[in-house]
């Protein structure tokens, strides 16, 4: 680790914070239905959308209706994306002449993009036509992010309001987020990306003759526009197989900084906006500090582990000073690679600039832990905020009893119904991740997909299910997921991870909104300040350690000890 490296990390994080603060005010305005400087241009468009869709923007929905709207929208998206893939061979804009995507892969990919996961059991440049990339994948990059933030809005309203029967209007929230937040920033970001070297063309590929006389076919496409929303919406689905490691998606250190900035921006701003919405900035600040600590500690561990290098390779005569370079790009360096890896798994983006499968055991343990915890520091657009709040509710319940009061968070009492829903949401993760992992290690078809043997292979499987369940999308990419078993089970994992979590969250929102807000007093459990931050950290670490310690022990932890003793598989 070097001083310059940490300085690079600090600069990017400072940039994120500095821009997130004003953006949080803007987001709070969108949440509350207020006008802003873009309204003169976008309001007519917005109203036109409502008129065509038959949406009455003044009518709010109960949490039940909100959930129905969510499901309807997701089903529509799934069907359209599935159809696009299955018919791409007869649709236009297919310069490479790709075949229709196979049924199980199309199923997996459709669920993947609807749920903001963007797990890709395929390589973009070898499978997806330009039309599919644009009309299917780019569109759902926008819509899945907007959906996530809409759910978060509903959840925040549950805390901000008292004795309320409604939690917002799903269609209004999705439309406003897409039009006012995602689209404008994506447009600017896309153009900056092009200026910095990211290609944007409708051509399929270009052929060149190398200096040595060989032919190189270079795949091309409209990638700057997709890259912008891929990062901004914490989607992570790359145009190319190598994702943000591909020099076209991420040409230099500047684009890399912008990519990290983009993927952190809205999640961080949402947390601050949450504080604004409930009328107490310190609430948002406490949560943000907790998230920041977990994120930065992760960065530190990855940076340290990767800089130390791989013992086995150093023994063969490699220069250890550059650290572990297998699966890394020269132009980024260890510090930025560590930051990207931690941020991408802390947010649920899932884009990669280094191959996670090639990370050292401890370097790989951090992204794995991040996604096992559900990607909640700071989490995906919307999903991170409500994911973290559910954990906060559980923490407040246990600790709240310790001050001798019925537990309450932000003035809302946490009672049986809340615990039932929160525990249900929390239960989904270990059930899906450990359940499917346990099943996979017993099946030959699953084991055949492994790229690494021994504990690292176990890590590949657990990482896959954890990533899909948390709607992250990154992978220990050696795992060949394009088999019927994995396409199906990973698809189900994504489905459960998104909806079996979001539906209880909306039900929670409905119940909490209807409660009366109790005013704070000297006897109220404090949810701001260092004590609360410490409590949250303790609960998060212990809760997830307790669930996944055995799996982690048999995967990255034992691999680390084995590496130190020189064993290989």
């Amino acid at each position, binding site marked *: 680790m070097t001083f310059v490296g940490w300085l690079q990390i600090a600069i990017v994080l400072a940039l994120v914070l500095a821009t997130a603060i004003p953006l949080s005010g803007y987001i709070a305005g969108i949440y509350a239905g207020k006008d802003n400087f873009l309204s003169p241009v976008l309001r007519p468009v917005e109203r036109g959308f409502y008129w065509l869709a038959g949406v009455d923007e003044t009518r709010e929905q109960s949490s039940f209706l909100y959930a129905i709207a969510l499901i309807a929208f997701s089903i529509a998206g799934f069907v359209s994306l599935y159809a696009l893939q299955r018919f791409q061979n007869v649709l236009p804009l297919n310069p490479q002449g790709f075949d229709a995507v196979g049924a199980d892969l199309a199923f997996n990919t459709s669920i993947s993009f609807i749920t903001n996961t963007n797990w890709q059991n395929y390589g973009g440049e070898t499978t997806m036509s330009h039309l599919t990339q644009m009309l299917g994948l780019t569109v759902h990059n926008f819509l899945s992010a907007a959906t996530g933030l809409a759910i978060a809005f509903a959840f925040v309203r549950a805390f901000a309001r008292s004795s309320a029967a409604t939690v917002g209007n799903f269609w209004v929230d999705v439309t406003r987020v897409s039009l006012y937040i995602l689209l404008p920033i994506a447009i600017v970001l896309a153009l900056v990306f092009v200026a910095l070297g990211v290609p944007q063309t409708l051509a399929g590929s270009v052929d060149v003759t190398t200096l040595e006389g060989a032919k190189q076919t270079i795949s091309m496409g409209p990638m700057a526009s997709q890259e912008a929303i891929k990062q901004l919406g914490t989607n992570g689905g790359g145009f190319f197989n190598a994702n943000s490691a591909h020099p076209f998606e991420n040409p230099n250190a500047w684009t890399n900084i912008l990519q990290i900035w983009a993927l952190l921006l809205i999640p961080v701003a949402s947390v601050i906006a949450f504080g604004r919405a409930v009328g107490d900035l310190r609430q948002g600040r406490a949560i943000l500090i907790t998230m920041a600590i977990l994120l930065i500690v992760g960065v530190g561990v990855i940076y340290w582990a990767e800089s130390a290098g791989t013992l086995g390779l150093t023994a063969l005569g*490699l220069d250890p000073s550059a650290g572990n370079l297998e699966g890394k790009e020269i132009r980024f360096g260890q510090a930025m690679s560590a930051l990207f890896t931690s941020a991408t798994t802390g947010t649920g983006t899932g884009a990669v600039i280094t191959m996670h499968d090639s990370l050292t055991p401890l370097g790989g343990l951090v992204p794995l832990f991040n996604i096992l915890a559900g990607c909640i520091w700071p989490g995906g657009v919307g999903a991170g905020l409500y994911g973290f709040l559910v954990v906060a509710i559980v923490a407040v319940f246990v600790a709240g009893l310790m001050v001798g009061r019925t537990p309450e968070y932000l003035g809302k009492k946490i009672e049986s119904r809340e615990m039932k829903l929160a525990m249900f949401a929390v239960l989904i993760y270990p059930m899906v991740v450990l359940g499917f992992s346990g099943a996979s290690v017993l099946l030959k078809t699953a084991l055949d997909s492994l790229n690494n043997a021994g504990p690292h292979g176990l890590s590949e499987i657990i990482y896959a299910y954890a990533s899909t369940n948390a709607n992250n999308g990154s992978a220990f990419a050696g795992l060949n997921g394009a088999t019927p078993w994995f396409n199906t089970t990973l698809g189900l994992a994504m489905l459960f991870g998104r909806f079996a979590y979001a539906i209880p969250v909306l039900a929670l929102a409905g119940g909490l909104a209807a409660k009366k807000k109790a005013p704070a007093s000297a006897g109220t459990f404090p949810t701001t300040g260092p004590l609360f931050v410490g409590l949250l950290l303790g609960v998060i670490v212990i809760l997830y350690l307790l669930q996944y310690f055995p799996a982690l022990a048999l995967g990255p932890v034992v691999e680390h000890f084995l590496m130190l003793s020189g064993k290989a598989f």
Partner: protein
Amino acid sequence: MLSQIRPAIVLLVLFTALTGLAYPLAITGIAQAVMPNQANGSLLTTSAGPVGSALIGQNFATDKYFHSRPSATQAQDPAHPDDSSKTIDAPYNAANSTGSNLGPTSQKLLDRVKADVDARRAAGATGVIPADAVTTSASGLDPHISPENALAQVAAVAKARNLPEDKVRAVVEANIEGRALGLIGEPRVNVLRLNMALDALTSS
């Protein structure tokens, strides 16, 4: 409940048109008009035509040129054109992109690196081997190598081209890109640009 179907379909269609067609096409239009070089891949040309992209790495196999990092990209096995699972090694295949995805306790990785290191030692390399010289990149298309790697190859390239070593070294050093503002980025050498400069040196 049925009242939610119409907004679902209509908004989906509207946003598909807006974000799926209008947005990317608009960006494409502006990019092609205002920034055509970047928009089309930052291609580098010589008198013979486009020789590659400044951003995409290439495979250099002869001794006359500086070598890139090893690459894990694959291509369809021409002997089995219809079986997608049959592939052969094809470094720097820019129609594909992949890393090795081998972990640090992988025997395959250790064997592969050992073979590469032995080859280098046989070719006369002494001291520590630069790490990037025997490790694959994440994309398989990394256009850069580390300055140490480039400098380590100077002797072999100079010998192959019959040039004095310091001339070659000078070319290398002229092509080392450092950190912008002393802070942003990493020290690196673009292999294609380096080799083009080398060719220019020889022809002049």
